[in-house]
């Protein structure tokens, strides 16, 4: 029966597993015990790695990479907004949502890769500072959740069938959740600069 459930409801089983894992992590205070062990890695990132060295020594390189990070985030925001506002029936109503979803996903993947790569460089330059910032960890969590949500939940559902066969309320809540999580990533990222 369990194997039947696992084979027919893989996504749901995966979601239950993740929720249980998070609950256990919080229950046994794993975060508090893992957090101090990350400090050496962050210090290595800033003071010993070449990306940290480049970021600290050449301020203009750091600023340029940050600008590229911003541009890639703007592209992510654009693709997310166009797709999700179409799912909400606000924009581009005369173009099939399947076309919009498939057409923007490639652009989203590329810009997310660039954002993550440039983000690592930016974090490395100030690694000893961001380690102690709660807003940085919230951004990382939001980024992880947003990426997993996009690649394992949203896209598989939207690619599995015609959108007219999916309950409109499911599409709406999917779109709102997606917009909210990526807004959180962007806002907390900007907040890091103010901390």
């Amino acid at each position, binding site marked *: 029966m369990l194997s039947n459930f696992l084979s027919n409801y893989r996504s749901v089983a995966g*979601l239950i597993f993740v929720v249980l894992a998070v609950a256990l992590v919080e229950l046994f205070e794993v975060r508090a015990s893992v957090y101090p062990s990350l400090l050496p890695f962050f210090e290595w990132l800033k003071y010993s790695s070449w990306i940290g060295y480049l970021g600290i020594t050449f301020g203009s390189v750091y600023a340029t990479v940050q600008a590229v990070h911003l541009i890639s985030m703007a592209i992510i925001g654009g693709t997310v907004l166009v797709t999700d506002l179409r799912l909400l029936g606000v924009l581009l109503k005369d173009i099939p949502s399947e076309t919009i979803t498939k057409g923007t996903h490639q652009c989203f993947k590329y810009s997310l890769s660039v954002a993550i790569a440039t983000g690592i460089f930016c974090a490395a330059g100030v690694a000893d500072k961001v380690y102690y910032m709660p807003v940085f960890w*919230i951004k990382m969590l939001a980024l992880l959740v947003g990426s997993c949500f996009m690649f394992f939940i949203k896209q598989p559902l939207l690619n599995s069938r015609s959108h007219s066969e999916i309950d409109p309320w499911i599409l709406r809540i999917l779109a709102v959740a997606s917009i909210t999580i990526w807004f959180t990533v962007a806002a907390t990222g900007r907040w890091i600069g103010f901390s």
Partner: protein
Amino acid sequence: MNNSKWDDKTIAAASSSVIILGALLYYWVGEVQSTVELLELAYGSFKFFNNPMIF
């Protein structure tokens, strides 16, 4: 092939969206609350130190 409207992917999408939205709402409402409290504190300090009766 499962033709039910509520199949694996749909249930996962609905439940994960609800969980994510709930968590984010909790976070942002908390942030707005703490920001308002900070602003009240700052305003209170400003009024206190700009009061000519206090020196």
